[in-house]
């Protein structure tokens, strides 16, 4: 399932619901990305998406993950709008029978979200605003799967 939310979400609550909903899964991996406190240099993060293509693209990545790995369930939650320090940006939850698949799918989906998902990210700090695009490392990570 894919949720794009313009209000804050509770990662722990989602982890508990997801694990209870998947008791045939022995392994639940997760990744939580949150707005990092960089000693005051970052004050807020703003994310844009496009209702249609953003969800469509993530759904395609989920389909690829299901074809490629043995997995039971996936939940992807991604914030849009304005976020402050400490607020969750993204949560990926993966349920699988065994841990190797759970880890790899989480990693695979995060690489997609960082480099291909249709989000635009603006960071506001002491010295103004900056649109953040993927780092070279992100593109390199994403190439591991192709």
């Amino acid at each position, binding site marked *: 399932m894919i949720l794009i939310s313009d209000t804050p979400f509770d990662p722990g609550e989602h982890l508990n619901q997801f694990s209870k909903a998947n008791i045939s899964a022995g392994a639940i991996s997760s990744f939580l990305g949150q707005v990092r406190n960089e000693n005051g240099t970052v004050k807020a993060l703003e994310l844009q998406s496009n209702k249609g293509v953003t969800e469509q693209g993530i759904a395609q990545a989920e389909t690829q993950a299901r074809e490629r790995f043995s997995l039971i369930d996936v939940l992807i939650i991604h914030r849009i709008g304005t976020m402050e320090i400490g607020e969750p940006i993204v949560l990926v939850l993966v349920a699988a029978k065994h841990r190797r698949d759970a880890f790899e799918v989480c990693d695979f989906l995060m690489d997609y979200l960082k480099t291909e998902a249709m989000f*635009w990210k603006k960071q506001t700090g002491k010295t103004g605003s900056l649109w953040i695009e993927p780092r070279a490392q992100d593109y390199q990570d994403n190439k591991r799967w192709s």
Partner: protein
Amino acid sequence: MVKILYFGRLSERVGTQEEHIDLPDNIRTITELKAWLNTYHQLDGILDHDTVKTMIDQSLNHKNSSIIGAVEIGFLPPVGGG
């Protein structure tokens, strides 16, 4: 009347995320639209970068497609979430 969407740094440069424009009849392709918007908004060619993708009626589009009949056209700089 066509709806034009700008994302990320393009929205900041143009000054809006969304606008509705009555295009002249001779603007029929993405390339013609980019040239027209470039003059109209004084964009210094930022829509022409290879990294800027286009979307026509919610479908991603990498070539110089026709925009005849399109309701919504979007311009997308490099993306990244997470």
